[in-house]
C-alpha cells in the first residue's frame, strides 16, 4: 500500500490533485496572496486577477463619525507606491502616506480616502492613495 502511494498510480493521482489545487488557487490569485508578502493588503480588497488587476476600492469605511462624512469635497490629493519584481529581484518604493496625499492636495481637514491598485502579472504593482477633504 505504502509502496503504491509513493511509486504507483496513487502517487501520480495525488500529484495531479495537488497540481489542480495549486492551479485553482492561482486562478483566483489567492494562492499567490497567501504565499506572498508582495500582494496587496488593505481593509477592503475586491477579488483580484492573475493577469491584470486594476480597481479602485474604499480605504476608509468609518463614515458614521460625527454624524456623517462630507461626500463632496473641494480638494483632492494623491500619494503612491510602486513595486517591481522579477524572480528574486524585488524593489518597492514610494511615499503612500495620507499625510503626503493631504499635503499634495492642500487638504487640512481630511474627509475620507480611497485607493487605486494596479497589478500587471505581479511584475509591476502600483498603489495610489486618494485623499478627499477641505
Amino acid at each position: 500500500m505504502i509502496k503504491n502511494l509513493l511509486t504507483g498510480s496513487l502517487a501520480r493521482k495525488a500529484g495531479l490533485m495537488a497540481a489542480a489545487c495549486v492551479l485553482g488557487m492561482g486562478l483566483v490569485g489567492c494562492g499567490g496572496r497567501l504565499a506572498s508578502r508582495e500582494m496587496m493588503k488593505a481593509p477592503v480588497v475586491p477579488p483580484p486577477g492573475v493577469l491584470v488587476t486594476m480597481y479602485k476600492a474604499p480605504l476608509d469605511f468609518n463614515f458614521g463619525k460625527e454624524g456623517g462624512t462630507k461626500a463632496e469635497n473641494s480638494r483632492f490629493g494623491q500619494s503612491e507606491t510602486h513595486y517591481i519584481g522579477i524572480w528574486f529581484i524585488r524593489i518597492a518604493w514610494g511615499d503612500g502616506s495620507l499625510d503626503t496625499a493631504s499635503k499634495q492636495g492642500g487638504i487640512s481637514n481630511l474627509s475620507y480616502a480611497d485607493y487605486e491598485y494596479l497589478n500587471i502579472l505581479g511584475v509591476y504593482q502600483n498603489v495610489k492613495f486618494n485623499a478627499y477633504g477641505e
Partner: protein
Amino acid sequence: MKKLLALAAVTIVSLQLTGCLVAPVQPPMGILYTSYQAPLDYDQSNSSVGSKSGSAETMSILGLVALGDGSVKTAASNGGLSTISGADYEYLNIIGVYQKYTTIVHGE
C-alpha cells in the same frame, strides 16, 4: 475521462476554498454560488440612516482579469450624496468564474 472530471472538480473546489474577497465583515460563503450584502461600516453609533444611496463596482473574470471602480468617491457621486452616513458592500461569486464586488454608500 474520469480523471479529467475529478481534476476539474478539485480545481473548482480549490477555486472556492480560497475565498478571495477581503472585507471587515465576511459572512460564510458558498462553494457554487455566493450572493450577499454585508456591512462595510459597522460603527453606526453617531449616524442616521440616509434617504439616498449610491453604488460602485469592480469585477473579476475567471480570476484572471479584475477591473472596475468600487471607490467611495464614485459610489457617492453615482448616488448624488453630499453626506455619507454609512456603507455596505455586496459580493457575488458564481463558481469563481465571475466575481463582483459592489460598494454601497448611504446618506443624504
